[in-house]
């Protein structure tokens, strides 16, 4: 019996099992990685970054959306993005399996989407706003008038402080009338579905 137990034939089922377990583990690993268009695995930072609104406004206290995404992966709170609002917080919470918390009031409240516009007759052509713009949405040259490319402006307001003559205005994008359909008011009133028997 003992001679049989040390027979090399016993290695076959053991090595087979080992091979199967290992290959299954590798398969699971490969499936859990996300792949981008260039067939490179996407990091968690990329995934978090995709959820952020990319206004590059720095209201979170970081120098842009990607630095904040890196910080979130390292454990920073997910509620520091006012332009993203509730939607961004919810999708980040879902991605990272965290609780969806309210927006951090230290970063300011929710705002309506805006763009900026330069009062062109007052512009002195100092190029300070051009240097501040994170997405190259301001066009101009030294001592020449500058202008904001409205379609590219993220509404981050980073150009407003550097302007020495205060010639930049913030313009809300939404007019006073609703641009789209609203759900019936009831959607925000969960009490509606309490039946008389359940009432306390």
């Amino acid at each position, binding site marked *: 019996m003992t001679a049989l137990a040390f027979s090399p034939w016993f290695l076959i089922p053991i090595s087979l099992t080992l091979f199967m377990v290992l290959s299954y583990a590798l398969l699971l690993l490969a499936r859990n990685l996300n792949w981008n268009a260039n067939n490179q695995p996407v990091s968690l930072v990329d995934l978090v970054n995709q959820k*952020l*609104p990319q206004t590059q406004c720095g209201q979170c206290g970081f120098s842009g959306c990607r630095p904040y995404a890196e910080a979130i992966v390292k454990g920073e709170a997910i509620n520091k993005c006012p332009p993203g609002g509730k939607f961004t917080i919810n999708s980040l919470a879902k991605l990272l399996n965290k609780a969806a918390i309210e927006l951090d009031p230290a970063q300011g409240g929710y705002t309506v989407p805006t763009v900026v516009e330069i009062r062109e007759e007052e512009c002195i052509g100092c190029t300070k706003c051009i240097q501040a713009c994170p997405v190259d*949405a301001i066009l101009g040259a030294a001592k020449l008038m500058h202008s904001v490319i409205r379609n590219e402006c993220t509404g981050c307001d980073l150009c407003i402080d550097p302007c020495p003559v205060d010639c930049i205005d913030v313009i809300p994008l939404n007019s006073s009338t609703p641009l789209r359909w609203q759900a019936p008011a*009831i959607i925000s009133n969960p009490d509606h579905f309490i039946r008389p028997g359940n009432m306390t």
Partner: protein
Amino acid sequence: MKHSFFPATSSSKKSYYFTGGIKPPANKKRSLRSVIMDTPIPEFLYLSLKQYSGPDAIPVVCVGDKVLKGQLLANAEGELGVPIHASTSGTIREITNRIIPDEFGHEAGSICIEADGQDTWITRQPITDFKSLGPELLREKIQLAGICGLGGAGFPTGKKFSSNKPIDWLIINGAECEPYITCDQALIRENPETIVSGARILQRICRALHCVIVIEQDKQDAIDALGTAIHDCEIELISVPAKYPSGSERQLIQMLTNQEVPSGKLPQDIGVLTANAGTASAVHNAVINNEPLISRITTVCGDALKTPKNFRALIGTPVSFLLELCGIDYTSLSRLIVGGSLRGFTLKNLDAPIINTTNCLIAGSLREFPPAPAELACIRCGSCTDACPAGLMPQLLYDQIRSNESAKAKQYGLNDCIECGACAYVCPSHIPLVQYYRAAKSDLAAQKLRQRLSAKWQQRFEVRQTRIRLNEKRKKGSRRRSLSRPEGMDVTDTSLENFSRENAKQQIADAVARVKARKNRTPTNTQVKTKNPGEGKP
């Protein structure tokens, strides 16, 4: 192959059928009692520059200009724009933002014409035979005439017929299934020959192999009129069962061809094009009479009116003007609905003008349109699933939207919902389902826009970051180079082997001496001349 697509003739016994649908009371008789009436010209007409969801047209006239009927007022902008023409002769009074008839009470740029009452036409060149013109020329004529879908969606017809896909069937849609609306039926009844002519022009443009005109079975007068008008051409007349929404493009195609238009595709992808009967008539006017789209048939009906009827209304006529022509009783008017009673929307401001897509105005009394009963809980009866013509499960969509899962609702086919309102009509719990769907759809659209924007911004941000990094690198590199080899110095002298403290001291002393010598030389004439030649001249 192609001939098995449709039954050979209208007399064949094939039953046309699509799943779902409802049979609401038609309420069409009152407005059909009289013939189509040409409206008198109102004092002021307001032509909105926004006629479809495309970009606003660009005005080519100024305030104070005198314009003739049919004159071009604004050029189409972009691919989906339509040009705007003057609907009567008169003077341009102002070009400002003004209310337009839409769900939200938006304003859009509008041209106000003060009518001179003469109604003088611009010179037109009518033709007798459209076959003298090629398909592309005909299409261009339609586009320049500003024709767009008059059934309600308002998509520019010239754009719709510009696809290069092979078209087997052209369907002229005269089904008009929605309650209250009778404008197509009245038009078919009175001018069937214009629709037939328009259909033949459209068939020539899209090179369709076959052309059919579809009317619902309960509109016998229209079927009879059209039957006599098509006796000598190859166009076929098909009558389909009266069921809402048989007039919806996708349901109509499904009914006639047993083929569903795939989700996210257009009818031309399966070789079918549809056009409304009113559009066909407008095409006839544009090509044969050389008249741009400046009027349309609008049904004005409802209990708050004494004499509901169909009008051939000039585009830009204020809604209140038409209502007063029908003898409106403002005290009994509770809601004014634009469009039919199922798909229409409430108009709050009666000053809004008629636009291309205004097919019906319902001045409803309180008895006719009582306030909506309170929404109750879904009891999962499944009536909405039976009624849905698009084959969706409305109660599931509703569940997903209620739990804020719009993305999941999309997986259940939310974007295939045609917003016909059949589900909400049959719902015993009075749930305003379509409103939920519309809200969720606009949420999804907003999300999509947001994603597109953030992808663009991210790319621009990254490009900028890379550029800044490269610039810094370049700057650093050039500084290192300049440190290692100062300008004007002999390379061999600065080499480390020859470097010594005394040597350096000597070099500094030399440099100081050179500077002193230069300072002493400065006042001489030659220096000034070389530095500033303009000043050196006597």
